């Protein structure tokens, strides 16, 4: 019998246009806490979805569980084998009780009319919760619980299913410090009982607290698996980021034009606070920080979608209140959202219709109708200048690959001739070649006088395009770095610890 509980070998996964995973392996020993780590887009969540049975890997993958070859085709297959996934957004039923949430999914299709045994259900739930040393009334509906409590319910569900392997995806992202401590205790006790845990997180400190071994992924590729004692936080960061700098760090000098946008003491309850910065003509301002640090909310507030906020937004020296996205466009602001498929594009509509959408009003002829000829010319212009492939303007936007879709979105916003371009995760899910193309494009636009804000979690990207970098943490600005002083390490320090300079000692425990 192998020493490994789980072995995933030769795992590749290709999505249209992107190779998300390329020959990755993951081996988890019995009773260990195994950290899966990598930057955003490194392929962690794809790997986990394959483990969960949500995605099927490309042919050639090998999958062993408890030493035997295993096939996981549907989520229920994973559950039945004893693999439980605790997603970041949790899979709970808010209207059902704690007991039910723990018990649900236990019976198959055949037993529709089987009586639900509430007594057994509660007994099972209580037992599972007791193992976690977590006291709560099992008849409470889950919607009444805090996120931390809900997470415990998910873990209890895993225990009730006799899970041998529990995957926790960013489990601490919405927990307070005290709750995190409690979670650690739970993890240790699970480990003591021989349950393996895959722990996915960005927070290096906690990874070192709980993990025995680390598997590092980078750009969909396997970097290596290491024992905790082989690593330090610095080394881990280097492993995640890679020795080879992916992109050339930006060396161009920012043109110091006039101020386009100034934000003063911007605040929105539950989103961000005390945000002040300015953006000049011809400058690329990078905003980075962990997912959930309030970056996107800030951008959407400036774009008039996330309302109402406190504080001032000053454009071209004039104080303005932006009440809607329509007004933002009028003021010369363009915002390219993070999710192309749901927010950026209307997938079923043609490329033409997508590109012209924000400028339709300018395409009216004297009869107030849309000048279709001009509209097509406009679309063709951007298809050509951005090299969208295939260059078929009537094709539905949903038919294109990720990189080409992103080009359409960029074309759409360039058509508005914006003064200020805010772009959220510009290269999310796009292959390497297209990435640097887009970086070049952004630099070129800035050189022509546009003010650009790039929001990104990908540090090399931020370094490659920005003139200045703002790092956000917990809804505030943790610090600002000029491009000359910025390194991946210094940004990480701000994002993780909220401090400039060296990683603090306590981080190393």
């Amino acid at each position, binding site marked *: 019998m192998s020493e490994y509980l789980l072995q995933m070998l030769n795992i590749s996964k290709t999505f249209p246009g992107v190779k998300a995973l390329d020959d990755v392996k993951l081996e988890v020993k019995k009773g260990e806490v195994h950290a899966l780590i990598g930057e955003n887009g490194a392929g962690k969540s794809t790997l986990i979805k394959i483990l969960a049975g949500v995605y099927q890997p490309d042919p050639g993958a090998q999958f062993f569980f408890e030493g035997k070859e295993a096939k996981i085709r*549907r*989520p*229920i297959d994973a*559950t039945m084998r004893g693999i439980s996934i605790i*997603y970041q957004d*949790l*899979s*709970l*039923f*808010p*209207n*059902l009780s704690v007991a*039910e949430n723990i018990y*649900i*999914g236990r*019976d*198959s*299709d055949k*037993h*529709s*009319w*089987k*009586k*639900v045994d*509430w007594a057994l259900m509660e007994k099972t739930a209580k037992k599972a919760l007791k193992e976690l040393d977590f006291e709560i009334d099992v008849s409470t*509906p889950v919607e*009444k619980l805090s996120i931390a409590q809900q997470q415990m319910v998910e873990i209890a569900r895993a225990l009730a299913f006799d899970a041998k392997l529990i995957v926790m995806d960013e489990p601490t992202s*919405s927990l*307070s410090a005290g709750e995190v401590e409690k979670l650690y205790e739970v993890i240790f006790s699970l480990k003591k009982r021989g349950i393996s845990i895959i722990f996915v997180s960005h927070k290096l400190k906690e990874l070192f607290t709980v993990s025995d071994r680390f598997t590092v992924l980078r750009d969909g590729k396997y970097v290596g698996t290491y024992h905790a004692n082989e690593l330090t936080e610095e080394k881990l960061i280097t492993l995640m980021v890679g020795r080879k700098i992916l992109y050339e760090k930006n060396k161009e000098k920012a043109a110091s034009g006039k101020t386009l946008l100034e934000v003063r003491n911007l605040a929105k*309850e*539950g*989103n*961000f*606070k005390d945000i002040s910065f300015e953006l000049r003509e011809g400058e690329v301002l990078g905003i980075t920080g962990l997912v*959930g*640090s*309030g970056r996107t*909310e800030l951008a959407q507030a400036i774009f008039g979608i996330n309302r109402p906020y406190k504080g001032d937004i000053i454009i071209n020296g004039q104080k303005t209140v932006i009440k809607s996205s329509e007004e933002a466009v009028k003021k010369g602001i363009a915002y390219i959202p993070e999710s192309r498929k749901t927010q950026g594009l209307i997938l079923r509509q043609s490329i033409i219709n997508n590109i012209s959408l924000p400028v339709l009003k300018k395409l009216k002829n004297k009869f107030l109708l849309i000048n279709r000829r001009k509209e097509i010319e406009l679309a063709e212009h951007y298809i050509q200048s951005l090299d969208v492939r295939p260059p078929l303007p009537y094709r539905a936007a949903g038919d294109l690959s990720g990189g080409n879709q992103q080009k359409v979105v960029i074309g759409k916003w360039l058509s508005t001739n914006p003064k200020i371009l805010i772009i959220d995760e510009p290269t999310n899910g796009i292959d390497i070649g297209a990435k640097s193309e887009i970086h070049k494009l952004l630099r070129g636009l800035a050189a022509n006088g546009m003010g650009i804000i790039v929001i990104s979690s990908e540090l090399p990207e931020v370094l490659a395009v920005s003139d200045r970098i703002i790092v956000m*943490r*917990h*809804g*505030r600005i943790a610090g600002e770095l000029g491009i000359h002083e910025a390194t991946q390490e210094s940004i990480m320090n701000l994002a993780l610890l909220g401090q400039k300079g060296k990683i603090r000692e306590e981080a190393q425990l």
Partner: protein
Amino acid sequence: MKAFLKSKEMSVAVIILLLCIILAFISPVFLTADNLLDVVKGNAVLGILAIGMTLVIITGGIDVSVAAVTSAVCVVLGKTMMFLPDSPLTIVLIFVIAPLFGVLLGSINGILVAKIQIPAIVVTLGMMSIINGLVLYITNGQYLNSSNFPTVFLKFSNFSVFGISIIIWLFIITAALTWYILKYTLIGREVMAIGGNKESAVRVGINYSKVQIFVFSYMGFLAGIAAIAQTSYTKAVDPNGMLGLELMVIAAVVLGGANIMGGRGTIFGTILGVLLLGIIQNGLILAKIDTFWQKVFTGAIILIAVSYDHIQYKRSQKQLSKIEVEA
């Protein structure tokens, strides 16, 4: 108890309570047991259908063919009773025939919705048109009255237990049964689970289309029961007697706090919604109010209720999307 005070049902209950207090002052007969029983009895059919509709709406569907299905079952019942002997067996038999026929019609809806993936509103619209046309064609609108029914059925209709009419009992039993199914059977919990979170339901391996077929068939089953109640109530079969009832049924469920987009809804809330509609109707005569204004009141109450509910919902969503900002 505390949970109840904060629940959506509470707001309906408060409105009902206020109405009752006002009516009690205006009309001395309002609060008599007799009157209240009449209100419940008069709305039992609406109530039975609304309970079925609650399940449909919880899963995000809608069924506008309920009234048509119920009429169809009424007609079938009426016609078969003309041939049934005057023995207690007849009662047993109608409790077999009516629900079976209802399930048959309901399952057609369910299969079309789940398997052909036609939106529920369109399927049931088409079914409504088909069933109404067939019923009218077959019956030519002919009434069947009590002289066509075996006396045992009339006895059954007038039967009461503890002074409460059998029709009210049918409503109570239906409510209890449905509550039991929702609470104590796997399929019931799956209906609730899908209502709670569709994505999670699929993650834990719940068969969505099976649940859809179930809720529409169950709706048909209850339409069968409602047909028995209706026939007992009027002691006659009027093929046109249910026209337009489907919108009242939907209104009752929505007033009871169910979300038309799916996800929320309780049996208790629906019962309150039915009572609210019933009390408005009853009260307007007792309070001697001009009947012409009744619809204006009803429309305004629906608008206020749904807008209020939506604003509350938006607020709660905002709470959920908060991120922790360091002070």
